C-alpha cells in the first residue's frame, strides 16, 4: 500500500472521527427535520403576519443546530495534534450550513409565497451570530448560551417598529444592505470558528 493511500485513509478517518465527535449526522438530520417543521408551520399559516413571523424566526432552528454541533468533549486534545484543524472545521461547519441551505431551498420550492432569499439571508445571519456567540460564551457554556445571541437579536428587532440598518432580518429580500450584513456576520462567525483560540479553559470540552 503506497504512502499516499495510507495518508488519504488516515485523513478520511480523522475527518470521520471529528464529525462523529460533533454529532454531525444527528445535526444534519435535525436540520432537515427542522426544515420539515418550518414547512408544516408555513403551510398552516394563513395571515401575512404569521408568515412574516415565521420567515424571520424559523431560520433560528437550523442555525442553532449548526451552532450547537460545534461543541466537542475532545477540543484540547485535538488542538495539540500536528494536523491543522481549520480544513476539517471548514468541512464540518460548511457542510452543515449547506445542509441547512438545502433544507430551506426545498421549502422555497414547495412554498412559492415565501421568499427564499429572506430565509437564506436570515439563516446566514443567525448562523453567524450563533458561531460568534459560541466563541464569546466559551466552551463551557456553548450548548446553553449558543442560542442567547440569535434569540436576543430576534426578540429585539421584533420590538422595534420600522426599518433600521440593524433590523436586517425583518427587511424585505430586495434590501441589499440587509443581505450584506447577514453575509458579513456569517463570514465573521466562520472566521472565528476556523481559527484556534489562543487559550481555552480546562473544562473538558471545546468548540470546533
Amino acid at each position: 500500500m503506497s504512502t499516499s493511500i495510507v495518508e488519504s485513509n488516515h485523513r478520511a478517518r480523522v475527518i470521520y472521527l471529528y464529525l462523529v465527535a460533533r454529532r454531525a449526522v444527528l445535526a444534519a438530520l435535525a436540520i432537515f427535520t427542522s426544515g420539515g417543521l418550518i414547512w408544516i408551520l408555513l403551510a398552516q399559516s394563513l395571515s401575512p403576519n404569521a408568515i412574516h413571523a415565521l420567515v424571520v424566526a424559523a431560520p433560528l432552528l437550523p442555525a442553532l443546530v449548526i451552532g450547537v454541533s460545534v461543541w466537542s468533549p475532545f477540543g484540547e486534545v485535538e488542538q495539540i495534534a500536528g494536523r491543522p484543524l481549520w480544513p476539517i472545521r471548514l468541512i464540518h461547519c460548511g457542510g452543515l450550513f449547506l445542509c441547512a441551505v438545502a433544507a430551506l431551498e426545498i421549502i422555497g420550492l414547495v412554498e412559492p409565497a415565501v421568499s427564499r432569499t429572506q430565509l437564506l439571508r436570515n439563516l446566514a445571519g443567525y448562523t453567524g451570530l450563533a458561531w460568534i456567540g459560541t466563541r464569546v460564551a466559551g466552551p463551557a457554556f456553548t450548548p446553553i448560551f449558543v442560542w442567547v445571541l440569535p434569540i436576543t437579536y430576534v426578540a429585539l428587532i421584533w420590538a422595534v417598529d420600522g426599518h433600521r440598518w440593524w433590523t436586517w432580518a425583518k427587511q424585505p429580500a430586495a434590501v441589499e444592505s440587509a443581505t450584506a450584513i447577514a453575509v458579513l456576520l456569517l463570514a465573521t462567525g466562520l472566521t472565528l470558528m476556523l481559527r484556534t483560540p489562543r487559550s481555552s479553559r480546562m473544562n473538558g470540552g471545546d468548540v470546533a
Partner: protein
Amino acid sequence: MIARLIWIETRRNVARWLVPVILLVAWWMLSARGWIPILWSSTNDLLQESVIPFAVPALAGAAAWMAGRERRRGTQDLLATTPAAPLSRSLSTWASTAIWGIVACTIFAAVMMSWTALVAAWGGPELPSFLSMLTSILAFSAWGYAIGVLAPSRFTAPAVAVGAFGVVLYLTNYMSEVSSSEAGSVYQETWITYLAPDKTRVESAHWHALLYFGLAGAALAVLALSYRRRVPAAMFLIGSLVVAGTGAGMIRHEWIHNHNAVIVPPGGPPPALEPAEEQAPPVQVCEGDPVTVCVHPKYEPLLDDAVAATNRLAEPLSGLPDVPQRAGPHAVHFTGGATRSIFELGQNASLDVSNFASHLVADESIITDAVITNPAQIAMRSWLLQRADIDSHWRCDNPRFRSWETPGMPTSAGMTTRETCAATAHFAALTSAEQRAWLEANYVDLRAGRLTLEDLPPNS
C-alpha cells in the same frame, strides 16, 4: 430537605447567568417600545411585552439544559443510590430555574413600578397581570424541563428555546381570515392571540394564571410519569389539563363576549353598560393663569410645561376680545411613545398644545374635526407657533412638512402652503407695535373666518 436542595440548586443553576441578560434585553425592549413612566397604563402594558418575549424562551431553554445535567455529568448511577426520590431532585432543579426567572421578572417589575409610582399622578399597578406573567414563566420552564428529561441531548436546550420563542411569537401574531375578496383577504386577531403570555389583560389575568398553572402542572405530571409514578401522575395530569382547559375556555368566552359587545351593533350606538360597570369619568385637573389648561389627571406631571406653552402662545393676544382662556382636552392632547434612541426613557412624552393655536385663531364653531381651512387663520397659527417656539407640523420653518418643496409629497386640509407661509413671514417681519395694532383691528374678524390672505399685512 427539599428546601435545602432548592437552595443548593439555586446557587448552582445556570439560569442565574441569564438574569442580567433578561434585565438588559427587557430594558432595551422597553426603550424600543417607548415606555412612558408617568402613565400606569404604559407601565402595565409594557411590563409583560418587554419581559415575556425573551425571558420565557430563555428560561425554557435553561430548564431543558438543567434537566440533562445528571446525564451530561455521568452522575445518574451515583444519584440513583441516594435515598432522595428522583422526582424531588427533579422538582428542586426545575424550581430553582424558575426561581431565577421569577427573580429577574420581579426585579424588573419592581424598578418599573417604583419609577411609575414616583412620577405618576393617576392609576395604579395591575398586579393580576404581573402574577399571570409569573405563572407563564413557571409553565414554560416546566415544559422545558420535562422535554429536557424526556429527550436529553445537546440539541434539546436550543430547540426548546427556539420552540418557546416560536410559540410566543406565533400566538402573538396569530390571525384568522375573516373575509376574502378579489382585493385581498382581511385578517383579524382571534381569541387564540390572547392566549399569548404577553397579551394578558387585567380583566382576564386570573384566567391566564389558571391556564398557565394548569400547563405547569401538566408538565410536572409528565415528568412524574417518566419516574414511574403512574396512577397519581396520570390523575394529576388529567386534573392539570382540566384546569388549563378551563382557563383557555374562559379566555375564549371573555374574548367572544367582549368582541361581540363591540362589533355586533354595526354603525349603531355602543352597547349600554350595566350600572355596576359604569364608571364616572375622572375629574380633570386644571392649572394656569391667564390661560388655564385642563386635562385628564393622569397627565398632571406634564401640566406645568403645557401651561407654559399655552401662555406663550396666547401672550401676543392678551387683552383682545374673545381670546380663549381655557384649553381643555379638545385643544391639548397627549403625544409620546415613539422611540427616540436606545435606553432613552421617559423623554418622549408631552402635551401637544398645537390645537390650542387653532382655537386662538379660529372660533370653535368653524373648526371641523380639529382642522381649520381658512388660509389667513392658517398663516396666523403658524406665526403664533413659531413665535412661541412650539414644535408642530403646522410651522412654516419645519422642513419635513413644506409639501410644496417636495414633489410628490401629499398635502392635506389645514396644512401650510407656499402662500400662507409667505404671509406668515411678512407678518413676522413687522414690529411688535405693528403686529399688535393689526391684531387689535382684525382679531375678531380673523377668528370669525372673515379674512383672506390679502387682508393680512403688508397687503391690508
